[in-house]
């Protein structure tokens, strides 16, 4: 779940507020309890005060009665004295309305009120009551409440026993007491307070109340909880606990009550709850107010705080999005003076860093792309086909010339294996394996180059092409994943021309052969037929014609050999042969030429017979003829010596002459086609420049070696080595 900072702050604040609220409630609760306790104590005190005053009130009356009783008991006959005393009582105690003296039998003896003494005739008997009975038994007892007079005012009577000297009850004093007077006492209680005190009798009837109207309704309040507890529990002298009830004005009040001893009246002190607990209310209000204030304060703080925090964050977020969309000039202007401002500054630094590096990158990209364009133009303009392959030998570059050469487009061949794109054949029409011309997987030798001046290329259904191939392996290419660069140079035309040339040479040579064959044949026949009749000169002419035709044939054979070599058609049938007789044969063939130049042509046969070599007899004959006739040709005086020696697995033939030698600078080119030593033409030396080329080709086909050592002016030594036939190799090997 994703919560915004604002939400988190809000939740945090709510939690704090709740905790604070709970604390406040706890405080409120304690205060309220304490306050209620305090109020209860005060209320009880008030009620007790009222009860004490009622007690005092009765004590006063009892004291008056005691005096009257004492007076009466001393002389019951002197009623006037008693009446007089009683009249005084009214003066001292305004609550007493009427005093009546009764006999234990209930007969009225004397009745005095504020108006005076009631005449004897009006006296009667007192109605027998519970209170009277109690008094006769010696206990002071109040009567039931009753209402009398024009105002129907509440009254009650107090029956007080009169004891004789012998402690027997001789009469009863009945004192009528107006309760209205009590009202004053009650109404004074709690005057300064907001509460009131009221009194109910032991029946629960209301006997005193500041509200006189309510009093006149004469309600029985025994159902009020504060009263019923005391009525139901005679042992209790005061209420236990707090009592709430609705008073006659439907005001919720809090009350305490106490019992007045002996009378069993109940004094209640009640206060409107709101008044009684005004402190609690005040505290509640204060708490509520402060809490609301706190709430609002926290809320405002929260908003300010969150605005302070989230706005910069939002700005940062907006800036980030802008930056993300490529608006690199985006900067923030957060001035919150806190960590977010630091963050904003860091963002700005990052953005400007990014902008700088991006700018630099753009610049370098421009230069790279211009370089790349340059490179692309160069690649496209190269007339040779250029292919780059990666380390898995897949094509990754294919220039325009390559497209033209192969008939494929770059799109078609990219990521294809190179051997799916091109197939190469060597001169003997064998497929060149991929590993050979793109030697990546095979060997990790950096920079290794494969080159072949003439291979056949087949690709994409195009007609075959003849190409020269060069492969360069890329050094340290693992990062760029470029394995090798293959260059294919289209030599199809040259190849065709070369082929035409070879065909022509071959054809020409063949065409030359036929008349030459006729010449030689007829010459031979003619010579045999007429040689007997020829003189020495004519003999010499014949010899020269013959030698010339042989030279012509030798030249033609050389031309044919070159054409064979070029086409890869020069073949040798290799088998074990002995070199000595072949050398003997060639030496005897060329003996005439040596003799003509007065040179000594010598074959120094080895002391012990040498092993056979693997060779084609006719080819070796050609080689020997070439080398020896060369030696004769380039030697004017001295000798040509042929010798054999065995070295390891090879038999080496040396042809040594004492001729003009070969300049050092010409030695490396000596075995190249058409190469002729400089100035040899000037010196009148004949030759096609093909002999040594053919010789070298033949020797290489024999897996042999050929080399020359020469000192200009002193002579040369041409040597060739041929492999010795292994004893097991009896079968001729066809090459």
């Amino acid at each position, binding site marked *: 779940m994703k919560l915004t900072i604002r939400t988190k702050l809000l939740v945090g604040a709510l939690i704090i507020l709740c905790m604070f609220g709970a604390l406040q409630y706890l405080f409120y609760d304690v205060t309220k309890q304490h306050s209620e306790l305090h109020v209860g104590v005060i209320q009880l005190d008030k009620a007790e005060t009222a009860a004490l005053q009622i007690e005092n009130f009765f004590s006063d009356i009892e004291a008056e009665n005691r005096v009257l009783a004492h007076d009466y008991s001393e002389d019951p006959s002197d009623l006037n004295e008693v009446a007089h005393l009683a009249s005084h009582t009214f003066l001292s105690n305004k609550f007493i309305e009427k005093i009546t003296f009764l006999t234990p039998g209930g007969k009225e003896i004397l009745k005095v009120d504020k108006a005076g003494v009631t005449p004897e005739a009006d006296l009667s008997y007192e109605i027998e009551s519970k209170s009277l009975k109690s008094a006769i038994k010696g206990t002071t007892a109040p009567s039931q409440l009753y209402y009398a007079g024009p105002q129907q005012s509440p009254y009650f009577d107090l029956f007080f026993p009169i004891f004789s000297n012998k402690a027997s009850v001789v009469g009863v004093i009945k004192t009528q007491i107006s309760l209205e007077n009590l009202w004053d006492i009650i109404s004074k209680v709690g005057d300064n307070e907001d509460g009131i005190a009221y009194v109910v009798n032991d029946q629960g009837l209301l006997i005193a109340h500041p509200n006189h109207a309510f009093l006149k309704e004469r309600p029985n309040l025994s159902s009020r909880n504060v009263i019923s507890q005391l009525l139901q529990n005679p042992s209790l002298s005061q209420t236990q606990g707090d009592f709430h009830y609705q008073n006659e004005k439907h005001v919720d009040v809090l009350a305490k009550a106490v019992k007045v001893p002996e009378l069993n009246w109940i004094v209640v002190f009640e206060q409107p709850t709101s008044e009684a607990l005004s402190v609690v209310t005040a505290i509640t209000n204060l708490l509520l107010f402060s809490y609301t204030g706190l709430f609002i304060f926290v809320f405002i703080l929260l908003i300010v705080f969150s605005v302070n925090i989230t706005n910069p964050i939002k700005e940062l977020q907006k800036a980030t999005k802008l930056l993300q969309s490529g608006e690199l000039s985006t900067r923030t202007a957060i001035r919150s003076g806190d960590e977010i401002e630091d963050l904003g500054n860091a963002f700005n630094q990052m953005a400007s860093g990014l902008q700088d590096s991006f700018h630099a990158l753009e610049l370098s990209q421009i230069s790279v792309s211009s370089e790349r364009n340059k490179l692309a133009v160069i690649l496209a303009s190269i007339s040779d086909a250029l292919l780059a392959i990666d380390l898995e030998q897949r094509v990754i570059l294919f220039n325009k010339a390559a497209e033209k050469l192969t008939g494929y487009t770059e799109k078609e061949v990219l990521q294809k294996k190179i051997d799916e794109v091109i197939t190469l054949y060597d001169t003997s029409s064998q497929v060149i394996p991929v590993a050979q011309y793109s030697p990546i997987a095979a060997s990790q030798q950096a920079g290794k180059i494969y080159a072949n001046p003439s291979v056949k290329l087949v690709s994409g259904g195009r007609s075959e092409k003849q190409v020269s191939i060069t492969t360069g392996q890329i050094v340290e290419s693992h990062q760029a994943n470029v394995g090798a660069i293959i260059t294919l140079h289209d030599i199809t035309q040259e190849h065709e021309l070369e082929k035409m040339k070879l065909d022509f040479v071959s054809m020409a040579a063949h065409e030359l052969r*036929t008349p*030459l*064959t006729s010449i*030689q*044949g007829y010459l031979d026949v003619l010579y045999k037929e007429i040689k007997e009749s020829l003189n020495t000169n004519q003999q010499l002419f014949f010899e020269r014609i013959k030698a010339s035709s042989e030279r012509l044939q030798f030249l033609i*054979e050389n031309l044919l050999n070159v054409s064979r070599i070029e086409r890869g058609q*020069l073949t040798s049938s290799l088998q074990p042969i002995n070199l000595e007789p072949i050398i003997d044969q060639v030496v005897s063939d060329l003996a005439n030429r040596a003799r003509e130049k007065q040179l000594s042509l010598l074959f120094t046969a080895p002391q012990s017979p040498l092993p056979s070599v693997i060779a084609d007899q006719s080819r070796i004959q050609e080689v020997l003829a070439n080398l020896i006739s060369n030696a004769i040709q380039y030697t004017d005086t001295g000798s040509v010596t042929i010798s054999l020696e065995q070295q390891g697995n090879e038999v080496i033939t040396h042809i040594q002459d004492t001729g003009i030698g070969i300049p050092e600078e010409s030695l490396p080119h000596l075995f190249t086609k058409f190469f002729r030593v400089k100035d040899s033409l000037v010196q009148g030396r004949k030759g096609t420049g093909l002999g040594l080329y053919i010789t070298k080709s033949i020797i290489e086909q024999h897996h042999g070696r050929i080399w020359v050592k020469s000192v200009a002016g002193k002579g040369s030594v041409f040597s060739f080595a041929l492999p010795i036939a292994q004893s097991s190799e009896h079968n001729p090997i066809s090459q």
Partner: protein
Amino acid sequence: MEPATKKSILIVEDEQFLRDLYRMEFEENGIATDVASGGKEGIEKAKAKRYDGILLDIMMPDLSGIEVMKVLKQDPATKDIPVIFLTNMGQEDVIKEGIALGAVAYLIKSTILPDQLIEKVTMLLDQHATPSSV
């Protein structure tokens, strides 16, 4: 020389000078020689008469010696006659083809003089003499 042992050969050669030269030489050496100036004529003559050997040129205007050889080898009457290619075609592939077709030898005209040729052919014919011709 007894007529019964006199060998007979057919020379198929388009070049008249050589044809005449070789016939002259072979006849002089006691070998009955017939000549044909082309491939087709060569086949006709080869089928018409039983020869001890045939010297066959390759480069001929009407039918090449290779083609002639193929025809001769397909015919039971001629397939056993020893054939010697006598040509100036020195190409290895042609030589190989000729040998493969069953020629007993492949000789290059320009490298061999007439008397050398007769010596070689006589030797070859002796080596490859068919039972019927003995």
